[in-house]
């Protein structure tokens, strides 16, 4: 309380001295007053008063406020508290440059040097949903003119769906100036939606406008408007509304169709990525690797480690005692590149684990496929527990780099970047594997050994080594899959269990020992699964039907899409 009163004095002082006193209060001061105001109503009123102001200080300050960026700073002497905003790059110990809110100038200490502060140590200026609502309103209207198109469009929509008839002129003015097509579209939409609240003539035009725009988002509003029209006994108006709705429904089915295709493709790609490693270890080598899922987990955890090393470092409770790993405190784009580093590393780690596994256990079981199933299951239990003891039984966070966490929306169909990325990478991986198997000497060796181990060894091929590398390759691919999973799913000790059955299904349906088959089956299963979900609107039923379909499919083609005579599987 005492500090607060002191604020007032201080700020008044500033008003007197620093700010050249103008009759109307400058936005900065309005904001300061809003911050200091005790009752919420007053705060909201003050913030509201900023509407229409075009001071460039408003945006940064309100945005900072919304996002916990404004702080109360106690000078070392503790005598005065000053409102500051932290800005700029964080330095080694997370400190940022402090700017005074009242004048936007850097905060200077006694010695006149700019002060750097750590957000964590300061008390942030409070705010809640209602306040944010008020700020949003201010920012929206500001934003109608923001240079960034995406932001602008968001703003336009926000304004539009408030259906505030007073805003029509503002929107129209903007529409006159607007050059960007996307923005124009949403402006028209916003206007139309707002007009649904205006005169009947306006409503009619609005209906037709929205029909042409087949705007999904205004569906409900149109429906309500239409019902009102019905109630008010204006059939022709209601009919126009109905037409608009029909148009939108049509549009929606189109979206769902293409959306489903895309989703099926992306799910298929994921299946492909997780299964292709198995297609090698199981398909080519005939090792029923139940630990394949854990290889995926290993890859995912590697990504997690890399991310933390790029960040602030991490301490692993390594079987009881702690093992600290320092971080390199990367920031900005450099930090974002962690994923690109993680990819090869997760491949390597998983490959190494796989090789270790092959040397220690698998190699004794090449002629006993069913027992390899059992042994590797045991291994999967061991690995799961090991991961638990190393990283705890909780899931761990892996945050997606910015270039994987956005999306493109083309004609209302959303294409998530992570999905597109996965699809693209699936392609790359397949291509890579194809190269390795067909264009490299290792590939030649692999294929020869897989076709006839004894023959190959007679011809002086070091089958031991080839087996090792092949299994390494398979596991490595699983690890790679893990890196992607970490971007779309959760990373935990039992991560692998969620995928193992699907993996085997994919490989078996594709035809053991046939990579091409795996590709087709993965994409096939993906598409079927997504279509079923779209039709049944029930993920569980979809999954079950897929399994049934697979079982029946194998009745019809007992050895999968593509039959390959494989040493291990037929006697």
């Amino acid at each position, binding site marked *: 309380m005492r500090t607060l009163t002191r604020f007032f004095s201080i700020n008044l002082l500033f008003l007197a001295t620093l700010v050249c006193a103008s009759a109307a209060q400058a936005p900065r001061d309005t904001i300061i007053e809003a911050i200091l105001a005790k009752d919420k109503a007053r705060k909201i009123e003050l913030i509201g008063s900023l509407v229409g102001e075009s001071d460039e200080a408003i945006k940064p300050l309100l945005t900072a406020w919304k996002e916990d960026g404004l702080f109360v700073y106690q000078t070392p002497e503790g005598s005065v508290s000053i409102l500051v905003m932290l800005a700029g790059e964080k330095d080694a110990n997370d400190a940022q440059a402090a700017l005074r809110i009242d004048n936007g100038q850097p905060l200077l200490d006694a010695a006149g040097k700019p002060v750097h502060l750590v957000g964590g140590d300061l008390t942030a200026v409070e705010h809640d949903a209602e306040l944010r609502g008020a700020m949003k309103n201010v920012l929206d209207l500001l934003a109608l003119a923001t240079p960034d198109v995406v932001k602008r469009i968001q703003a336009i929509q926000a304004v539009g769906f408030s259906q505030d008839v007073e805003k029509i002129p503002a929107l129209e003015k903007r529409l006159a100036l607007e050059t960007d097509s996307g923005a124009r579209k949403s402006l028209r939409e916003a206007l139309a939606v707002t007009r649904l609240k205006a005169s009947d003539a306006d409503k009619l035009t609005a209906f037709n406008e929205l029909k042409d725009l087949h705007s999904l988002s205004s569906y409900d509003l149109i429906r309500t408007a239409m019902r009102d029209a019905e109630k008010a006994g204006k059939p022709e108006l209601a009919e126009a509304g109905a037409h608009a709705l029909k148009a939108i429904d049509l549009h929606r089915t189109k979206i769902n169709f293409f959306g489903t295709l895309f989703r099926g493709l992306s799910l298929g790609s994921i299946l492909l990525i997780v299964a292709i490693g198995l297609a090698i270890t199981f398909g080519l080598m005939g090792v029923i690797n139940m630990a394949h899922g854990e290889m995926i987990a290993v890859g995912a955890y590697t990504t997690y480690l890399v991310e933390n090393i790029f960040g602030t470092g991490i301490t692993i409770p390594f079987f009881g005692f702690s093992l600290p790993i320092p971080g390199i405190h990367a920031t900005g784009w450099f930090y974002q590149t962690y994923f690109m580093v993680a990819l090869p590393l997760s491949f390597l780690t998983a490959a190494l684990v796989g090789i270790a596994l092959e040397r220690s256990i698998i190699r004794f079981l090449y002629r006993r496929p069913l027992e390899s199933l059992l042994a590797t299951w045991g291994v999967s*239990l061991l690995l799961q527990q090991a991961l638990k003891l190393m990283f705890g039984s909780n899931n761990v966070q892996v945050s997606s780099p910015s270039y994987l966490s956005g999306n493109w929306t083309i004609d209302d169909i959303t294409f998530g970047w992570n999905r597109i990325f996965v699809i693209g990478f699936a392609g790359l991986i397949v291509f890579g594997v194809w190269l390795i198997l067909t264009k490299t000497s290792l590939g030649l060796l692999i294929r020869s050994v897989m076709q006839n181990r004894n023959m190959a060894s007679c011809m002086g091929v070091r089958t031991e080594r080839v087996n090792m590398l092949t299994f390494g390759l398979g596991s490595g691919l699983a690890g790679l899959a893990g890196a992607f999973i970490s971007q779309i799913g959760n990373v935990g000790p039992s991560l692998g269990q969620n995928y193992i059955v699907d993996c085997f299904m994919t490989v078996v349906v594709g035809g053991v020992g046939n990579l091409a088959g795996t590709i087709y089956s993965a994409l096939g299963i993906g598409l079927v699964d997504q279509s079923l979900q779209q039709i049944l609107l029930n993920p569980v039923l979809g999954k079950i039907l897929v*399994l049934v379909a697979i079982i029946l499919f194998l*009745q019809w083609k007992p050895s999968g899409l593509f039959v390959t005579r494989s040493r291990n599987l037929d006697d």
Partner: protein
Amino acid sequence: MSSLSTRHKVELIAAGFISLFFIVIFPLLNAHGMVSDFTINLWGKYLCYALLAISVDLLWGYTGLLSLGQALFFSLGGYMMGMYLMRMIGDLGQYHKPIPDFLVFLGWTELPKFWKPFSSFPFAFSLILLLPGLLALVFGFLAFRSRIKGVYFSILTQALTYGASLMFFRNDMLMGGNNGFTDFKFILGHDLRSATTQRGLFIVTAIVLLLVYTSLRLLSHTKFGLVQRAIRDGENRVLFSGYATAHFKLFIFVIAALIASIGGALYVPQVGIINPSEMTPDKSLEAVVWCAVGGRGTLVGPIIGAISINSLKSWASRAAPDYWLVILGGLFVVVVLLLPGGIVSIPARLKSLWQRVTRQPSA
């Protein structure tokens, strides 16, 4: 090798003694408070697992069919029994309504049609045999007709049980969803909570196990047993000797399903719960572990395996909860690599064990 028959005589006598112990002495000790109700109940559970393990072994150890779907048949038996037990709760449930609780809070006011007949034990019992038997018959027919074998068979059965578990997890399956069936009160008019009822169930389980054991032992001596093992060792040769291997495999598959199912039916009233997690693929795999650790291709093996591993589990989940999985997994790797014959083969192996460790096991 040579003195097969005598070995089996010894084994039968041993089995006789052990079953005498389980069927008569153990319950007597319990009745006189020398064995706690907890222990006998625990052992009842182990013996049910033993039945499951035997059914796995019958397929895998004797016929070379590694089925990862036995847990499904086990649970189906359990569910059939469970439905009967749910009906027997009457209106003693949380809601004191005449229908099972989970139906009440799924908004049902009266019993769904397919639930009605389960108030009769004979009906439930016949379904315990019919349903899994039928499923096994259909699935087996399809699978064996199209000559699905080896790994394909394993993975297909795994898919089957996985799909089934997904189905039972759904609440609108009206089989209790994830919660499954619990809170049983009576079986055939006896209070399930009374020690005597539990003892009774234990004795029944022991007797069933003995019956299954002996009949399978006899079966393995018939020509059928020969064909069965011949299929395991070289199916094509059996085909070319004029045997319709598919029929034999189908028969075995159904028998195994029935054994598992009965095991499950006895299991549920003793543990007091059945839910879909009992039919997930890794439960089947666990049963395979018991069988492998005990010693597959023998009949005592699975029993020993089931009992020893589960008592180990009971112990570990209290003494070393964090390391239970490590123990199980490790045990498994070791057995597959170093002791393919399982525990029962230890005496035979003891001498040559050291050589086996140093030299690669031959295929």
